[in-house]
């Protein structure tokens, strides 16, 4: 229990241990711990970034969905409009076509009537001529009275 040269030896030993620890033990351990800290911090930052990006992306996708819905309803509205337009056009065309057909039919009918009348006229003329011829006999010159007869036919 007395102080002796052990003191000096212990001090030297202490200095050597501290030196060794400072040189070979502490720096690599701290370096590894720092590296791990950095790795964890980076990982957390990346996770945070990923979360933000996810939020952004979901926001963007919701936006796009909304836009798409709007567009779709717009397109549907346009389609509806167009469809009714087409129906209207078709109706119009049909009406026009109908009118045209009616007009053509009328014209044809008129033509037919005219033709029938013409025919009838000529037949009436010949009948009248024949009748008149029979009544008047030779006295009536067909050629001389043709004008008169024609006038008569036109009056009919």
């Amino acid at each position, binding site marked *: 229990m007395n102080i*002796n040269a*052990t003191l000096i030896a212990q001090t030297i030993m*202490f200095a050597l241990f501290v030196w060794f620890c400072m040189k070979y033990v502490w720096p690599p351990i701290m370096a590894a711990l720092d590296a791990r800290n950095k790795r964890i911090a980076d990982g957390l930052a990346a996770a945070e970034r990923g979360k933000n990006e996810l939020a952004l992306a979901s926001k963007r996708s919701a936006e796009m969905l909304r836009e798409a819905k709007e567009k779709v309803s717009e397109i549907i509205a346009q389609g509806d409009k167009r469809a009714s337009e087409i129906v209207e056009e078709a109706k119009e065309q049909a009406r026009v076509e109908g009118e045209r057909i009616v007009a053509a039919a009328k014209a044809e009918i008129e033509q037919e009537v005219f033709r029938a009348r013409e025919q009838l006229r000529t037949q009436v003329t010949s009948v009248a001529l024949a009748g008149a011829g029979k009544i008047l006999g030779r006295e009536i010159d067909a050629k001389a009275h043709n004008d008169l007869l024609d006038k008569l036919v036109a009056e009919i």
Partner: protein
Amino acid sequence: MSTEDLTTSAYIKHHLQNLTCTIQDGHFHCAHSAEEAKEMGFWAFNMDTLFMSLMLGLLFLFLFGRVAKSISPGEPRGMQNFVEWVVEFIDSSVRGSFTGRNAMVAPLALSVFAWIFLMNLMDLVPIDYVSLITEPLGIGHFKLVPTTDPNATMGMAIGVFLLVLFYSIKVKGLGGFIGELTLQPFGKFGLPVNLFLEGVNLIAKPISLALRLFGNMYAGEMIFILIALMGASWVSVSFGSTLLFGSQILLSLGWAIFHILIVTLQAFIFMTLTIVYLDMAHQEHH
């Protein structure tokens, strides 16, 4: 009665005696008694203290150095986990108490803590088991706990003290350091008083460091010895003897469990004070 007293005190003396050796008349010689050790004077070595502290220091450096060599920033396992835990604990202690910038303080704190912790831990080895190994080897005395030897604690404290002096002068300059010792707290007209007060303040640092650790461990060791004596007073199968024997078992268990706390606490206190003293050495006084 007198013979029993003699053996009891001899037992205590035996356990408090270091293996003090020196080279006398050209040959290596170890003391057999405290008086003989005293006669050897300063130039003698406590072989047990040197051996145990060297072995425990090497054990610490081996364990930590092996991890430091193979450490990777990946997932820590086993020993690496433990070492990292210790290192982080020391690092946070240093960051908490040391305000300067010095790459040496943290490794110093780690060495101090681990070394003292291991040396103190030897206190938990049952005291009489040591002689089972040393006696056949012809070694008369062997104190297993280096920190119960004031040479060991004083040696460390001197190491810390030299570092305090070194960094005081390095940071503040020789003039600043001397100024700190002489010009406060009473200004330049109270110089002798200042020198006395600050001198005591300075010298008290290593002394208190060394004696606190030594005192605690020595007292703890002493109590272990006293507890170990209880069973030694066995005479026959009687109520008294059995009670004493049982008490020894219970008390040494209790004291050992309590000592785990003291072992750690004293290592921690020594480390923290080392950090604080070095921090004071780095600070400019106002």
